[in-house]
């Protein structure tokens, strides 16, 4: 019958109170945000400034301080969808394999004869062997350079796919290695994008992998997508290569093992460099903006011990020779080595301004992107537009709640008041859940909340209509209420599960606005079932125990 055990009452009230507490910070959005930002900054810096102390005091520490994350369409900011050209890495792997293979094959020159690389697709290594009858030997040598693939699906496979036909030995990455490489490339790109975005210190950027080769980047508060693109789109691949010569001819043939690269600040000048670098940017441990001896902006860098050793050995052996600093396939400068640099630190100077040197330092510190990225989708939303949308959404939500509450009370009287309390609680719980899990509220999400307000009444309506029917059949009040709740259950569950299915599909398949809407819709469903079944029932039971009505008008 109409009895709810004490522990259940306490539990329902506890959920209500906890919901209220978790939702509360959203009422003081700016203050809590300042508080949270100051805490993060203070932790990063390791000490607390006065301004931060004041900001921290804006919100008590014992209160929950989670906020509903505002989406870009509400806060303003930039959104980018980047595609990573994972096949770039295959090419890099093949070109770094070539010197190694050449050395290994050359050791067996008397058996194999002369060896040369044929032009072919960049992700393949095609090698011509003079004595085709010794191909088995060549394949064996090539195989000795391969290593097993370490992944769950590719276990037992080798990283190189080696095939031979006639005089030509063809080596490429095996399929298992390709997929493992793709995965690593994306992980690495994600990490580097994250570090680059973090360097500029904006709040809560979203950097996510999407699908096989996509990265989604959303940065609130940044001025434009173009700005963001400039920051993360640069490859920043730094190498130091031996210089063979200089040329003014863009079509000069650099020769095998060499490359022809343009100079950055001297138009029409090209450098012929050895393709294999002495040291590369991966071995940098630090880079920071500075000024050179002429007072021009420059970047100071430091190598790790291995890099420092290689750099020292090379400079010691090549005093008087030019040495090229190459950034993103452009020669920044090619200074002549005066003496051995064994300290492992150096300086890049060239034509750059202070902003340029700062950005270069950031890029070098964060590391090079392993592969090129192109941008498939760019969105910039201005902060004013976002604020407008929040204001409009807030007013609309309040009016919607008032209209729904008025209509519900007009239809069901006191029970309508209960239903209205449940609906308002529902919105509070929804916001609390979103704050707790850090879900993002978007403009379609606000529409989702408003729709939830509309449909949250539904579960209550199903129950009340059932109670009405039971009353019409002449049941006593307690029995009518009890039966009403029981009979309504299956309809409520079925109806909500079907909508829930639609919501889940939207969440997992959808992107952008579809996802934002799905988040509030699905959370709203769960909270509305809770409020309708437990909270409304609790209110009705308490009311019944207090008034002991003989009669109920519904």
């Amino acid at each position: 019958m109409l009895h709810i055990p004490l522990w259940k009452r306490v539990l329902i009230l506890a959920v209500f109170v906890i919901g209220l507490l978790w939702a509360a910070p959203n009422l003081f959005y700016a203050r809590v945000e300042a508080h949270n930002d100051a805490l993060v900054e203070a932790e990063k810096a390791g000490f607390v400034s006065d301004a931060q102390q004041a900001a921290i005091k804006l919100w008590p520490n014992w209160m929950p301080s989670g906020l509903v994350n505002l989406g870009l369409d509400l806060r303003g900011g930039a959104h980018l969808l980047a595609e990573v050209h994972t096949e770039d890495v295959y090419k890099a792997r093949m070109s770094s394999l070539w010197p190694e293979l050449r050395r290994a094959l050359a050791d067996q020159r008397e058996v194999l004869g002369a060896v040369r690389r044929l032009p072919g697709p960049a992700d393949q290594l095609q090698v011509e062997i003079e004595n085709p009858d010794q191909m088995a030997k060549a394949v064996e040598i090539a195989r000795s350079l391969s290593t097993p693939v370490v992944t769950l699906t590719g276990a037992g496979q080798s990283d190189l796919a080696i095939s031979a036909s006639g005089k030509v030995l063809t080596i490429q990455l095996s399929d298992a290695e390709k997929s493992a490489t793709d995965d690593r490339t994306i992980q690495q790109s994600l990490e580097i994008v994250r570090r680059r975005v973090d360097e500029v210190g904006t709040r809560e950027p979203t950097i996510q992998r999407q699908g096989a080769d996509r990265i989604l980047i959303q940065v609130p508060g940044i001025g434009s997508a173009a700005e963001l693109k400039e920051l993360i789109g640069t490859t920043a691949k730094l190498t130091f290569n031996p210089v063979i010569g200089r040329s003014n001819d863009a079509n000069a043939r650099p020769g095998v093992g060499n490359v022809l690269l343009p100079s950055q600040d001297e138009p029409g000048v090209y450098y012929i460099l050895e393709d294999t670098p002495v040291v590369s940017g991966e071995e940098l441990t630090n880079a920071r903006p500075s000024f050179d001896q002429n007072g021009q902006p420059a970047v100071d860098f430091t190598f790790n011990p291995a890099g420092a050793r290689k750099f020292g050995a090379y400079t010691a052996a090549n005093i008087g020779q030019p040495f090229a600093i190459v950034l993103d396939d452009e020669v920044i400068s090619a200074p002549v080595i005066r003496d051995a640099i064994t300290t492992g630190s150096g300086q890049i100077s060239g034509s750059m301004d202070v902003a340029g040197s700062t950005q270069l330092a950031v890029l070098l510190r964060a590391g090079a992107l392993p592969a090129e990225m192109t941008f498939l989708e760019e969105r910039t939303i201005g902060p004013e537009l976002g604020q407008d949308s929040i204001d409009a959404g807030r007013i609309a939500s309040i009016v919607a709640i008032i209209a729904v509450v008025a209509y519900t009370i007009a239809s069901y009287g006191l029970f309508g008041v209960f239903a209205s309390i449940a609906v308002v609680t529902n919105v509070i719980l929804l916001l609390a859940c979103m704050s707790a899990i850090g879900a993002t509220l978007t403009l379609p999400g606000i529409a989702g909340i408003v729709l939830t307000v509309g449909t949250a009444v539904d579960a209550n309506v199903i129950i009340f209509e059932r109670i009405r029917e039971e009353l019409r059949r002449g049941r006593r009040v307690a029995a009518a209420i009890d039966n009403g709740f029981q009979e309504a259950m299956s309809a409520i569950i079925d109806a909500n599960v079907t909508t829930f299915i639609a919501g889940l599909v939207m969440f997992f398949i959808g992107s952008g606005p579809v996802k934002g809407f799905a988040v509030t819709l699905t959370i709203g469903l769960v909270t509305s079932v809770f409020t309708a079944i437990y909270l409304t029932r609790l209110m009705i039971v308490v009311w019944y125990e207090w008034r002991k009505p003989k009669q109920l008008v519904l």
Partner: protein
Amino acid sequence: MAFRLKIVPDVTNYNFFRWQSLTFGISAVAVTISVVLLLTMGLNFGIDFRGGTTIRTESPTAFEVSDYRTALSDLDLGEVSITEVFDPSFGENRHVAQVRIGATEDTQAMTPEQIASVEAALKTVDPEIRFAAVESVGPKVSGELIRTAIYAVVAASAGILLYIWLRFEWQFAVGGVAAIVHDVVVTMGIFSLLQLRFDLSTIAALLTILGYSINDTVVVFDRLRENLIKFKSMPLIDVMNLSVNETLSRTVMTAVTTALALTALLVLGGDVIRGFVFAMLWGVLIGAYSTMYVAKNIVLWLGVKRDWSKPDPDALPDQFTTQP
């Protein structure tokens, strides 16, 4: 007797099948017209699905669309459309335009240089202009977005179909899904007819319509199942009428509360989500209609097994004949 606002009387006895052929005819015609419209006029795809760039401009001074057009005509941008956005919530000194530029490149979104040149050209017309939002979608992604959107609608329908099948009978599942397909197709027909912008948000709205419509249908089905067990000998058509009548006040009540909430959003929510809310509001109305006039009729045609108390004898395995 306390005051109660009742749009639907306590006990109703409408015959929902009286105009069965008429309503079915209307639905069939609406679906046919929608399909024809979709095939002939097509949808006014937003940049999400077509690729391209939209720029939302705001200016305190009034402007002429033709001035903007002239300013952009020298830039060789391909297809450009400029519309002025009106909204009651904008004050006197707020003039908003939406500039849409078709996709120009094959693989990428618009280059920053192009966007900068567009912004510069518009600034010469109106120095006070601000760019509230710039969005650019490459054709490669837009194709995928269409595909995932279709997957989402199909997957949601399939999930719902499966759930109703498990919880009820297959006839209900077919009826329910026919109703949501009806709603989705007719809604898309309206979008085609009025050439409203169809983008990712619209897909979200379609999925909501789907969820709402099925929600409504399931409540009636639930009652129907209950009544089928209770009134074993009553003709199916009468049981259906009874079930709809019994749930009518709930159907109307919920439709009204939802419509109230959505109307508030439609009027006050700002122009950015107006299309989205319009689709949802329309969906609530058509969802209520399809529950009463589409889902049930199909179940009626298909017929249902009436007696759930005993297992179907045909479905039982023949235990003894398999013995040698």
